[in-house]
């Protein structure tokens, strides 16, 4: 009956998402039959699920990329254009899978310390990943919207996962209220898009918009509301205030998770919307984005300076990074979008690296997200300190770390498109950023430690650190393959 409308291809494309969903359910099932001691198996199972998803996607026999390569197609439409699996989507799916896997690895130890080791946690993480995937490959307003909601609602839950911790509750509730609020605004815009195109397919909307007379109020309203909604999701000023709170309140491992995957997904969403349906009215949203980008970098960097809580500081730094990535969208050429893609990739690794250290700071008697908790880390655990240093340098964008490559393309695109002033502002904020990152470095390297207890690096954390470090340095020193990849990626959404 279904085959009448749907071919096996449709489901083939969905394979990773489906696998993740199945394993999510599986985790919940098995969770019930696991003893308290064995709960780690949930994590293992979740990882296995991600592994299968990755396998079903990858460029090896049985993997989607392999088949696409065989068939020589660069993009596959499915579900009557509801989703489209192109290089762009695949690139992001990989980011989601990797980041989720690493975050799960971080969670294992963390949940032990919090004594919240339960299967649903991992299930929800997997489902959130599913949501992200739809954000990356959706070509239909409704699909995108549902994917978005699946993702954010999962993240709300995870943020509030520490039920006994008031900071966690508050963070979750704030995040949810504001998220719902912004979803409302976003939906309002979407409804108007539907109204003026009689469709929810992005490409049809694009053509519809391009046929509207310029200065058309409907277009204006929808563009503005949608822009506001999207900017909220990436935490751009002035729609950013949920972000520091959510970062601070969420469990360490979840902060790591939400600072990478959902952020990337939001950017994928943002790019899709701005590059496809809203491309025709670029001159409409460009000035807004320029203003917002400057405000974002300014506020993000300046308020990070005065933070004493490391997670919160990283929250503000995440805001400023979002500002940098917006610059790529402002430039709007292939260099810029490529920059965003690479930036997200490296941002994932360096950020997870930092959070891995923070997670391992957590002890029964210490929350470990205050900057001062890191005092004299070099004495307590030199490895962690040095790794932290490298990740922070990468965040600041000092070569030869990956962070520099990310910023490199952003600045390059700005110069290329003659946004000189913007470029100068951006590079100057690099110095400011360095200033607050190095406040952490100073604490780690030039203070006497409060206590000399060694840091216990759990295997999961070790692995995460290893991967993050390897990638941060590798991308920084030999970025060529990744640049190629990104170039290939952005082809599919560039006009």
């Amino acid at each position, binding site marked *: 009956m279904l085959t009448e409308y749907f071919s096996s291809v449709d489901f083939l494309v969905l394979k990773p998402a489906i696998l993740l969903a199945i394993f999510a359910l599986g985790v919940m099932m098995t969770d019930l039959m696991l003893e308290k001691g064995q709960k780690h198996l949930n994590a293992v199972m979740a990882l296995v699920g991600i592994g299968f998803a990755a396998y079903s996607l990858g460029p090896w026999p049985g993997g989607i990329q392999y088949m696409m390569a065989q068939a020589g197609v660069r993009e596959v439409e499915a579900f009557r254009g509801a989703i489209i699996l192109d290089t762009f989507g695949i690139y992001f799916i990989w980011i989601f899978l990797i980041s989720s896997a690493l975050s799960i690895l971080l969670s294992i130890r963390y949940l032990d310390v919090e004594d919240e080791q339960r299967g649903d946690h991992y299930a929800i993480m997997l489902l959130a990943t599913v949501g992200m995937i739809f954000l990356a490959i959706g070509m239909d307003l409704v699909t995108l919207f549902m994917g978005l909601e699946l993702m954010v609602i999962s993240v709300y*839950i995870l943020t509030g996962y520490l039920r006994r911790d008031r900071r966690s509750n508050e963070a979750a509730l704030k995040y949810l209220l504001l998220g719902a609020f912004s979803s409302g605004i976003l939906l309002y815009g979407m409804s108007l898009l539907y109204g003026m195109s009689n469709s929810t397919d992005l490409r049809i909307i694009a053509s519809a918009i391009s046929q509207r007379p310029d200065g*058309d*109020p409907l277009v204006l309203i929808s563009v503005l509301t949608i822009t506001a909604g999207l900017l909220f999701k990436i935490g751009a000023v002035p729609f950013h205030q949920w972000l520091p709170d959510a970062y601070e309140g969420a469990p360490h491992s979840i902060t790591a998770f939400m600072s990478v995957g959902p952020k990337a997904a939001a950017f994928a969403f943002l790019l899709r919307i701005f590059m496809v349906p809203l491309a025709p009215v670029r001159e409409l949203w460009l000035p807004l984005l320029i203003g917002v980008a400057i405000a974002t970098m300014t506020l993000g960097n300046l308020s990070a300076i005065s933070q004493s809580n490391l997670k919160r500081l990283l929250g503000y730094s995440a805001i400023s990074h979002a500002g940098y990535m917006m610059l790529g969208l402002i430039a709007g050429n292939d260099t810029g979008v490529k920059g965003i893609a690479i930036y997200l990739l490296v941002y994932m690794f360096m950020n997870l690296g930092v959070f891995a250290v923070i997670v391992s700071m957590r002890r029964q008697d210490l929350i470990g997200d205050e900057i001062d908790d890191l005092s004299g880390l070099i004495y307590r655990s030199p490895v962690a300190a040095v790794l932290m240093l490298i990740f922070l340098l990468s965040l600041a964008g000092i070569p030869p770390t990956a962070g520099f490559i990310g910023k490199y393309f952003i600045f390059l695109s700005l110069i290329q498109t003659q946004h000189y002033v913007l470029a100068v502002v951006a590079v100057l904020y690099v110095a400011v950023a360095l200033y607050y990152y190095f406040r952490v470095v100073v604490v780690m390297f030039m203070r006497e430690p409060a206590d000399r207890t060694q840091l216990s690096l759990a295997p999961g954390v070790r692995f995460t650190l290893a991967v993050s470090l390897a990638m941060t340095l590798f991308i920084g020193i030999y970025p060529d393959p990744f640049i190629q990849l990104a170039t290939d990626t952005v082809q599919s959404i560039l006009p």
Partner: protein
Amino acid sequence: MQTVLPNAFFYILAGVILGGGVITITRRNAVHAAIWLVVTLLGVAGLYLHLNAEFLAAVQVLVYIGGITVLFLFVIMLVNLEEAASERQYSGQWPLGITCAALLLIELGYFIYKGQEAFYFAESFGGTLQPNTELVALALYRDYLLPFEIASLLLLVAMVGAVVLAKKDLE
């Protein structure tokens, strides 16, 4: 006579909806707010009927009023709201809030109004809305099958999440 009535119907409903809305957000007692929300939602449902969206109207009544609002009422019962009701109702920033919201309304209105002549929607492809339920079903299971599936996951997550968060102690 055939058109006057529906028009009047629309404006009455609009009045109900807006009035209900205003009253909803001004109630001191959350229970009253929820009740008045029901009124508003009913108004909207009526509007759906008026717009030949019978199925949606039904959903509105069943899910919204029968589900969500009841959920609200449950929670309201669950959490003790005496002192909440006794305390100050409006946040300190309410004047600013209202001003901005008003500004938003004005601007929305301005833009919609300004573009009166340019203000047209995509032309219909000559489709039809009847029989409504069948069409909706077809759309839902054909064009929007994928979102539908996602919706199921979404509800699953919401359910699990609500349980995980709200339950007193899990073990």
